[in-house]
């Protein structure tokens, strides 16, 4: 896989919030149609990487290259139209808009109303529970349903690369399994996914490759299976993580 051209590559990225530096000299690559998983402790800068890739934080140093184009200083809208989308870790739906309106907003840049409608139908086919509740405000959904709605919204523009920030956060084990299985299916439909996860074991099981970040720096990287077996990664970053924590 590594000899192909990456769809996304982060080169020596340094950035942060206002004057607080969070990321130092980050390298990261995502190849077409692969799941790449980012793991690391709380506050490691995982969400910050995704926000920086998406253009919410301007790079201080380094470059972000998407599909061969340097997008480091291009606005968020440009990423959406070129085929990238971000699913935030929290507050990733519009609570007072109806479910259908949420999906429409996901496809805000799909300017042709007929294609937007067709896309909405496709998402409803994927997630029939959304169709059943399409006139209800999104705040009426449960945590897991919200997460699936957020993924559905992201799919509205038919992106090639999805940045997923902790899709399993706060979910029950059953719901978590459902979300992971959807992530896998979206991957099998040919999309590249860059996913941040606290439930590192499960995430690495569906991923092809993984990166471990700590204190805003690259710590480890490699094939997902190799990371799962690495003794240091196992004790420091996988220990205690995973499903056990979430069982009652």
């Amino acid at each position, binding site marked *: 896989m590594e000899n192909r051209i990456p769809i996304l590559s982060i080169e020596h990225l340094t950035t942060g919030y206002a004057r607080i530096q969070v990321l130092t000299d980050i390298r990261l690559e995502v190849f077409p149609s692969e799941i790449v998983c980012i793991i690391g402790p709380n506050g490691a800068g995982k969400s910050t990487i995704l926000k920086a890739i*998406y253009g*919410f934080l301007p790079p201080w140093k380094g470059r972000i290259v998407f599909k061969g184009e340097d997008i480091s200083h291009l606005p*968020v*809208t440009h990423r*959406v*139209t070129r085929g990238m*989308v*971000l699913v*935030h870790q929290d*507050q*990733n*739906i*519009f*609570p*007072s*808009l*109806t479910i259908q*309106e949420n999906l*429409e*907003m*996901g*496809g*805000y*840049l799909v300017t042709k109303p007929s294609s937007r409608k067709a896309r909405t139908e496709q998402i409803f086919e994927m997630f029939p529970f959304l169709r059943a509740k399409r006139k*209800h*405000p999104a705040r009426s959904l449960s945590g897991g349903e919200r997460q699936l709605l957020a993924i559905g*919204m992201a799919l509205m*523009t038919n992106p090639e690369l999805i940045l997923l920030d902790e899709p399993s956060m706060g979910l029950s084990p059953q719901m978590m399994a459902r979300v992971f299985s959807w992530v896998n299916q979206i991957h099998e439909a040919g999309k590249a996914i860059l996913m941040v996860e606290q439930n590192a074991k499960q995430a690495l099981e569906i991923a092809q490759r993984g990166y471990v970040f700590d204190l805003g720096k690259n710590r480890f990287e490699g094939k997902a299976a190799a990371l799962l077996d690495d003794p240091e990664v196992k004790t420091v970053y996988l220990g205690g993580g995973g499903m056990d924590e979430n069982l009652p």
Partner: protein
Amino acid sequence: MSLFLQSLLDGLIAGSIYALFAVGLTLIYGTLHFINFAHGELIMAGAYFAYLFMMPPLHLSPFISGGCAIVGVVCLALLMDRSVFSPLRNANSLLLLIASLGISLFFQNLAQVIWGAEIRTFPFPLERGISLGPVVITPVQAWILIIAAGAIFLLYLFLKFTRAGKAIRSVSDNPRLAKTFGVETERVIRFVWIVAASLAAVGGVLYAADTNLEPHMGTINLVRAFAAVLLGGVGNVWGALIGGIVIGLSENLGVLILPIGYKDAIAFCVIILLLLFRPEGILGVRWGVR
């Protein structure tokens, strides 16, 4: 009994106008996160612009004058945003509030310089009221109800069914997420100013038609709008709408019990009581549409 019903009708008419003010104020709050003290002056400007077009030498019809007033007030609001609020976009809301207070005072005094402090009325001929059973409604009042209801209905259609309307609601719901999907905040802000200013202009013209004009008419109407916004839960459009009607009704029903001089105090009391006991509002908190 007929006095009660008459007050109810008068309250509804006044309330429908206050609703137009309140909805604009709450829309601005929802996207820009500050209470725009200059909203009252948009109302006042609407009334005076219409007056200007109705009086000699222009002598235009009330409807055309009202239309021109809307255009004028929208331009004024966009100018305010460009010159004052836009440079302060990332400032805290206290600073924005103080800036808007400054604009408010500026335009009150400017209006006084141009038109003088005296009370004026639109040059409408006196018309006999129409009796509807126990209540009387003048043709002007009937028009006020129709126009206010029409404006609210148009607003509903705009917010609910147009792409721009949905973008406005999404930004007031979750600005970061709206940006994620490519909504340009500045464009949405411009739309919100246009909508809020149009509603202020329409309301201002209707208010002047129902009562009269004077340079400080914005202040008391800002207080009413603010009370209505608080009633509805800050940022909630349909809550503000109901809030406006409630304020209109309580003013007109209140004076059945209180001396008429206390009419303007009612909105103030509502504000104080709400801020003390229910700052999150009473109405519409769970309504589907913000």
